[in-house]
């Protein structure tokens, strides 16, 4: 796993144009602002839909409110793009960061949870004449979705506080949560 992480870092580091742009005076701050606007679009649209499944605004047909979801996904796309820009610029600050590992884990759970919604209760909740009260299983999915996105936000914010340092002499563990010393000619020993 540590070998895979080292490979990821060196691959991301080899993409230069994005990093060059991000290292300009306003590059990183602007990308951060966009990332937070995308975050709000995502949790606003997806969160409002989740709240409806949980029983807020029962007079709104679930199918009608589902039209907000593409905007939530737009927020997701904005954040995947801006997030990748951070990753390409400072790969070792993310690839070796435990907070980033958990952020990816919670994003994955949120994604699987959303897919579960579409293959199970989506049709039942959005059918014409569907009851205003969503089935219990849909509520479990909505609560999971809200919790996971909140967890993703928290992990994102904690990234800065869990910045990885250089690995101890014993080297990185299975999930490298420290920056391994660079090997090979011309490398800087850490």
């Amino acid at each position: 796993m540590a070998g895979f992480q080292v490979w990821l870092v060196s691959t991301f580091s080899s993409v230069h144009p994005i990093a060059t742009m991000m290292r300009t005076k306003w590059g990183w701050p602007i990308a951060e602002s966009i990332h937070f606007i995308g975050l709000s679009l995502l949790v606003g649209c997806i969160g409002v839909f989740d709240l409806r499944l949980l029983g807020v605004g029962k007079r709104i047909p679930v199918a009608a409110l589902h039209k907000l979801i593409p905007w939530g996904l737009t927020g997701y796309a904005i954040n995947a793009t801006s997030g990748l820009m951070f990753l390409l610029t400072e790969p070792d600050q993310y690839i070796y960061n435990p907070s980033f590992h958990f952020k990816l884990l919670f994003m994955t759970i949120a994604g699987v949870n959303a897919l579960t919604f579409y293959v199970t209760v989506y049709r039942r909740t959005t059918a014409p004449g569907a009851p205003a009260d969503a089935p219990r299983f849909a509520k479990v999915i909505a609560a999971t979705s809200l919790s996971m996105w909140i967890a993703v936000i928290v992990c994102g914010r904690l990234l800065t506080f869990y910045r990885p340092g250089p690995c101890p002499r014993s080297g990185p563990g299975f999930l490298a949560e420290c920056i391994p010393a660079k090997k090979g000619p011309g490398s800087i020993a850490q």
Partner: protein
Amino acid sequence: MTPPPPHGLIAWTAWIESTAFSIWMRESPSVFAFPIILSFHTIGMGLVAGINGAVALRILGIGPSVPVGEMKRFLPIMWFGFWLNAVSGVALLIGYPTKALTNPLFYLKLGLVAAALVVVGLVNREVLDRYGDRPSAAIPVSVRAKQLAVAALVFWAGVITAGRLLAYTYRHLMADM
């Protein structure tokens, strides 16, 4: 660093910085100090900007069969996010009062929050209350309502941008620097 501006503000922020809570905010190694309070501030941001954004998108025509007035049901959660941010924002301010209060961007952010709140009030009174729970596909949303929705999106995006830029801009980090 340029010397602090010669007025009473710095004396006051220096006093805040010397209080136990301010020191705890800056120096506690606990994840429940600065890191979690900052996380709460971001969750609140998502709820406030996100829910107001969703209401604005509905007014602008997304989800035309959603009864416009019924979007009001999500506002209590938006207000929960707002108060979460008022409280966490004050805690963050107590941690670094000189840094925030000597930065013009901080006042721009507060001004944008105020402007956005005026728009929330106008949307509430002129749009959500007026449309009530009527199924609204048939009722055209007024141009004025759409202007308010665009203003809401612009102001909240402005608040987020100004807030984010606060992390990268300051004149004086601490009163004695």
